[in-house]
């Protein structure tokens, strides 16, 4: 106890110090970059929206990353460098002085900055202008920048704001910024219009009246929605946050009466700019559920930058069980994908690379026959299809259970091996690896029996599957009569 006492005290003291340091860092950040910061430090989470100013114009080259043009490549597989992405359209070059803001969701642990780094909940580029790989790389870099005992937020903001971070994701030596994207034409349009907007206006320095709280606030505290209506952040945060908490996601839209009349809801990016990461998740889940209730066949386009709801084509009937009824084509970005695995269309005859089907079949089987949940899944994927998949799933499951129960996997080539008789020292027929049939570990080929003869090992004296060594030598019936 005497040892523990002061330790606890010290960590408590540390936490107090950390809290003060965080507070101070936040205040400094807000005074230097009022336009970047939002949210409340007392809640422990921080939202930064960092506009990128390149300091003069720079060449930006957008290349096709091949996701849409070639079905073989996946977005995740394409690296951030330009080398991989030679297929598809010619790159589009732009001269830009700004890039759309990056959104950072950060949680400050109670031991930051003395003992732990900030936790990066989410890093997102507006209009998805950075690829997922690039974002991952940036996340790693951000964490690596932190040194024990030092506040890092200022440096992070500076690193992004100045555009210096681009060097980290650019593999080329020259100053051209290379951005791989599934749809270069689309992105180019978005980047150009963003650049034009930020060049001609000083949004953040002007004050804007907010029609909700009826006060005028500086642009840095406001947000301009896609429909160009401006509201202050705290108001939108509260409005949308409340709607999401209470399940009224129809309210997550621009509050302007014109937009309300049009019935246009906020898009994912707008929601992300306003509410917390958890709320974004809940909003997405609720929206998905509502869309399902409305039209069970709707699937949102799987591309991050698109997300358009795609209904089942009218040409597909319920009894169609050919592979073609899995095909969906987004009418917005014309991405063709498989309705089951939501990956790039892989043809009617190839089964999905990842058994996504299992998840909805399990869901299907969990509900009563004839229940509304079952009907929903049937109408979404086709009744006959679901029937076929259930059969297939049950067969697969039985196979898997059988293999689990009756076979051992070779530790090298992973072939399933079934023992018909003999001892537990196995030699793989395919790759010649020596292994133990009981526990699946690799054995030393020159001394395989040591595994069974060394006292203390779990398979000691278990070369044969009998209770004890004595059982090995039971007399064979009738033997003595001979």
């Amino acid at each position, binding site marked *: 106890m005497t040892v523990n006492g002061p330790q606890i005290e010290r960590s408590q003291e540390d936490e107090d110090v950390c809290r003060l340091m965080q507070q101070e860092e936040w205040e400094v950040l807000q005074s230097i970059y009022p336009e970047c910061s939002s949210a409340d430090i007392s809640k422990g989470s921080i939202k930064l929206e960092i506009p990128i100013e390149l300091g003069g114009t720079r060449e930006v080259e957008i290349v096709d990353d091949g996701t849409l043009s070639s079905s073989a490549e996946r977005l995740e597989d394409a690296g951030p460098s330009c080398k991989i992405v030679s297929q598809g359209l010619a790159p589009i070059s732009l001269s830009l002085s700004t890039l759309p803001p990056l959104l950072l969701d950060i949680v400050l642990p109670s031991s930051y900055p003395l003992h732990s780094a900030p936790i990066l909940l989410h890093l997102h580029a507006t209009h998805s202008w950075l690829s997922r790989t690039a974002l991952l790389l940036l996340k790693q870099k951000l964490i690596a920048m932190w040194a024990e005992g030092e506040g890092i937020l200022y440096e992070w903001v500076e690193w992004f704001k100045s555009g210096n971070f681009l060097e980290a994701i650019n593999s080329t030596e020259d100053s051209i910024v290379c951005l791989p994207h599934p749809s270069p034409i689309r992105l180019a349009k978005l980047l150009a219009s963003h650049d034009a907007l930020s060049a001609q206006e000083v949004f953040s320095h002007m004050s804007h009246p907010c*029609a*909700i*709280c*009826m006060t005028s606030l500086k642009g840095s505290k406001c947000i301009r929605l896609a429909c160009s209506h401006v509201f202050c952040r705290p*108001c939108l945060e*509260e*409005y949308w946050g*409340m*709607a999401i908490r209470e399940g009224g996601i*129809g309210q997550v839209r621009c*509050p*302007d*009466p014109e937009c*309300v*009349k049009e019935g246009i809801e906020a898009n994912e990016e707008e929601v992300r700019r306003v509410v917390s990461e958890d709320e974004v998740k809940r909003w997405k889940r609720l929206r998905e559920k509502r869309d399902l209730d409305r039209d069970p066949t709707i699937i949102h386009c799987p591309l991050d930058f698109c997300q358009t709801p795609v209904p089942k084509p009218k040409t597909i009937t319920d009894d169609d069980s050919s592979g073609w009824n899995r095909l969906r084509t987004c009418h917005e970005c014309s991405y063709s994908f498989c309705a089951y695995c939501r990956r790039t269309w892989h043809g009617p005859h190839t089964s999905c690379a990842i058994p996504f089907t299992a998840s909805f079949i399990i869901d299907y089987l969990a509900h009563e026959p004839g229940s509304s949940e079952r009907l929903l899944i049937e109408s979404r994927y086709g009744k006959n299809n679901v029937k076929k998949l259930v059969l297939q799933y049950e067969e697969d499951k039985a196979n898997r259970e059988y293999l689990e129960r009756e076979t051992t996997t070779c530790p090298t080539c992973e072939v399933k091996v079934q023992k018909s008789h003999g001892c537990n020292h196995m030699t793989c027929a395919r790759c010649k690896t020596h292994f133990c049939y009981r526990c699946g570990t690799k054995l030393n080929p020159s001394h395989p029996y040591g595994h069974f003869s060394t006292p203390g090992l779990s398979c000691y004296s278990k070369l044969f599957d009998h209770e004890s060594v004595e059982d090995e030598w039971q007399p064979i019936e009738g033997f003595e009569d001979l």
Partner: protein
Amino acid sequence: MDARLRRVNKEIADCKNDRSSKIQLELVDDSPFHLNGSFPGPEGTPYEGGHFEVDIRIPESYPFQPLKMKFITKVYHPNVSSASGAICLDILKDAWSPVLTLKSTLISLQSLLCSPEPNDPQDAEVAKHYMTSRSSFESTARYWTHIYAGGPDPNAKDGGKGKDGQRDEVAIAGLEKAHVNQFEALGFERGKVIDVLRRLNYRGVNVTKITEDRVVEELLKP
């Protein structure tokens, strides 16, 4: 000061300064979140000349949740309950938006009086009346405006001054005196006749459609 209170105070002040809209707001008690709003009935409608009062409650999470409003003044209108004053208006429900204000919502109520939505009624009987005979509906609405909202007496020019102060139950129910008298003469109580004929929507073309036997059958029900 919390944001709700600040906004409500601002709204009340704005309303006071704006005399052109003729919308009035008054505190009911000490709370700024319980108000009494009023506006004149729109011109060119049966509500013209009346003064309509609305009970307004400002919810905890205003302006993110809609205002709660109901008519204190009795109104004869398809979208207003003739009994409770409850209002059926989209902006008080799903179509609410936090940029709407006390004033703009009261103006919307005022324009609801100009353009009833009988297909989405709050009061089904009134809506049926509206659909069956527009002229009969309008004269009933006008009569209600006169007796409840202080509007002009629609019968004044006919020299009906004599009955002043006496409320005409038949006119309130939107029925014809002759019809009520006809069934009362059969020996039924007047109040009951009015009630049944109102429920059966015994107006306009329905008078020829609904047989006398049908009415008597209803009247005989306990």
